[in-house]
C-alpha cells in the first residue's frame, strides 16, 4: 500500500510539476537546465522537471550542504513540493572555535561531527495576483559525540539555526507573499517561525521585506530589510538586519542575483 502511495506521489509530481524563475522559496521548481544564484542565496539548478538542487558553493568546503526540491501532487489548488536539506556544519564551527579575533566560539570547545537534516513541505498558489507560499517542516540535528551547551553562538539568526543540534530537533513554519507591481518590479514579504521545543530560547520569528527589480531573465537586484526577534538564553531580543556594529546603524540588504538557462 505504502509503495503504491509513494509511486502515486512521484507520478503525480511528474505530471503536475510547475516551474518558474526567481522563486527559490516557493513550491515551484526551476525550469530544467536553468541555474540561479545570488550573493546571499544558494546556487540552484533545475536538474530536470522533477528535481531542483541547491548548494551554497562558497561555503561548501567548510560547510558541506545540499538540498533538493521535488514536486508533489497538487493539493486544494496549491502547487506543492518537498525540500530536503542536509548540512555538515562541524568543519566551519571548529574553524570559528578559536582564540583571538573572529573566535566566535570559545577555543576550549571542540565540536563533534554533526549532521543537520531538514524536510520541508511547500505549498504555492496564485491568489488574485499574489503568489502565496506556505511552508512547514521538521529539522533534526544529530551530534556524533558530546556537544557542550556552552558552545552555542548566541546571536540572532545563528542561535536558533544551530540550536537544532543542541535540542536534537525543531519545527519551522512560514509564509511568503510575492506580488509583481509591474513587469519588472516585485515585492516579497515573508515570515518564518522556528521552534525548538524544550530548548533555552525556544523560538525565533524572522520577517523579511524585499523589493526586486528584474533587469532581465538573467539578473535581478533586491533591497529591503530583515527583522528577527526571539528568545535567547539571555532573554528576549530583536534586531533589524543588516546591522553594521561599528557604525551602529542599519543598512538595507543589497542582494544581486544571476540566472541563466542552458540550451
Amino acid at each position, binding site marked *: 500500500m505504502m509503495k503504491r502511495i509513494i509511486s502515486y506521489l512521484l507520478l503525480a509530481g511528474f505530471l503536475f510539476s510547475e516551474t518558474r524563475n526567481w522563486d527559490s522559496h516557493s513550491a515551484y521548481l526551476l525550469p530544467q537546465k536553468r541555474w540561479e544564484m545570488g550573493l546571499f542565496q544558494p546556487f540552484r539548478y533545475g536538474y530536470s522537471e522533477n528535481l531542483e538542487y541547491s548548494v551554497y558553493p562558497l561555503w561548501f568546503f567548510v560547510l558541506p550542504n545540499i538540498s533538493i526540491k521535488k514536486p508533489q501532487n497538487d493539493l486544494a489548488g496549491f502547487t506543492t513540493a518537498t525540500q530536503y536539506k542536509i548540512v555538515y556544519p562541524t568543519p566551519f564551527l571548529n574553524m570559528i*572555535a*578559536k*582564540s*583571538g*579575533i*573572529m*573566535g*566566535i*566560539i*570559545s*577555543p*576550549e*570547545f571542540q565540536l563533534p561531527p554533526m549532521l543537520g537534516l531538514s524536510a520541508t513541505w511547500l505549498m504555492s498558489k496564485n491568489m488574485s495576483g499574489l503568489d502565496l507560499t506556505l511552508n512547514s517542516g521538521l529539522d533534526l540535528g544529530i551530534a556524533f559525540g558530546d556537544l557542550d551547551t*556552552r558552545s552555542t*553562538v*548566541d*546571536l540572532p539568526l545563528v542561535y536558533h539555526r544551530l540550536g537544532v543540534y543542541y535540542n536534537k530537533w525543531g519545527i519551522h513554519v512560514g509564509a511568503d507573499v510575492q506580488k509583481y507591481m509591474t513587469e519588472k518590479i516585485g515585492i516579497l514579504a515573508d515570515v518564518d517561525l522556528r521552534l525548538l521545543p524544550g530548548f533555552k530560547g525556544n523560538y525565533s520569528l524572522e520577517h523579511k521585506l524585499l523589493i526586486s527589480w528584474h533587469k532581465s531573465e538573467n539578473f535581478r537586484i533586491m533591497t529591503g530589510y530583515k*527583522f*528577527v*526577534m526571539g528568545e535567547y*538564553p*539571555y*532573554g528576549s*531580543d*530583536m*534586531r*533589524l538586519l543588516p*546591522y553594521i*556594529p*561599528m557604525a*551602529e*546603524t*542599519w543598512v538595507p540588504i543589497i542582494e544581486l542575483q544571476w540566472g541563466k538557462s542552458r540550451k
Partner: protein
Amino acid sequence: MILGCEPFVTEFPDTSVAVLYESASQNNSTYGGGNIKVVTWNIRFGIARFPFFGDSCGDDVILDDDTIEKNMAAIADSLNVMDADIVLLQEVDVNSKRTGYMDQVQYLLDNTNLNYGCYASMWKADFIPSDGIGRIDAGNAILSKYELTDAERIKLHLRTDQDGLTQYFYLRRNLVKAKIPALTQGGKELFAVNIHATAFATDDTKQKHIDTYVETLSDIHSSGALFVTGGDLNSVPPGSVTDFCLSDMCASEDYHTDGAEEYHKEGSYFENFEGEPDILLPLYNAYNSAIDSADVNLPIHLTHGPSTSYEINDIKFDRKLDYLFTNGSWIDSLSQTHQDAWELSDHLPVSAVLSAEDN
C-alpha cells in the same frame, strides 16, 4: 523596529545614572548608629581560580553554570561572614555568556545580608567576536545594607594605545558613586565611591583614571560630605616592586629579551609612564588609607596574584592592587586583607571599619 536598532556595543556619556537594585527580601535595613564596615573586592565575575584566558596563563573562557553557582555561593558566604555595611565590587557580571547569564548583583543581594545595590557597566556588548566571549555585561557595583540614592556612573578615559576596532569592542571603565542617606554622620552625608582602573594600558590612561578618581573624591570632600572609597586601582603602592613580567610570564611568552615581541607584559609592569610608581601618593597624602602606608607592602596586605601563578611559580599573592580610603577615620586595628579568600578570586577582599565617633 526601533528597538531592533539598539547599539551593538554600549557607549556611555561622561556621567549617567547607575542601575539600581534591591534584594528580594529586606534584611536589617535600618541603621541603628555605630561604626560602618566597608569591603572592597574584585570578585573576578565568580570564576574563582578558573584559568581564564584574559588574565592568567589559561585558555578557557566559559565556566559551567554549576561551578559559577558554587563560586558565587562561596562569595556570598564570605560577605555574610564579613558582615559589611557597604561592599564595593569590581568585575561583576550581570548578563554575560561567560558566566551563564547570571545576574551576579541580584544573586549577591538575594543571598547576603545586603539589601541595595547599584551597578555600572564597564563592558557591555551584544557580542564580542573574539576568543568566544560572546555577549557581555560586566562592571562595578556598590552593595549596601541601606538604601542608595544619587547613584552615578562616571566615565573613565578610554585607552589610547589600541586600534579603533579593538577599542570599539574593549572595556569602557568607570567609577560608580552613590549616596547612602541612612549613614549620614553628624550632618555629613556619606558617599560610597568604587573604581576599577585600567589594568593593561601601556600609555598614561591609568594616570587619567586616577586623576578623575581624585577629582571626584575632592569634590565630595569639598562639599563637606564624607566618603568611603576603594576598589581595584590596578596600581602598586609607593615603594612596591613595579615589574612582575617574569613572574607572570606564561610558558609560551618571552619578556625582557631583545627578541621579545613586547619588552614588558601588559598588566604586569607598573612603570609605563613617568610617575606611575607613585601614582597613589595623592590619595595617601590627602586621605586615610585602611592599610597604613608604612605597612602596605607587607606580605599580609598583598591582595593579588594571577590565577595561574600558584601552579606555575608557587606564588599565591605578590602585589597590592586593592585599596580603601576615606576622608573620615578608619579604626586602624580593624583593617584587614582577607587572604583566606584566595580560592575565590585572583584578588583578595580588603575590609575596614569607619569610626562613627571620629567623624
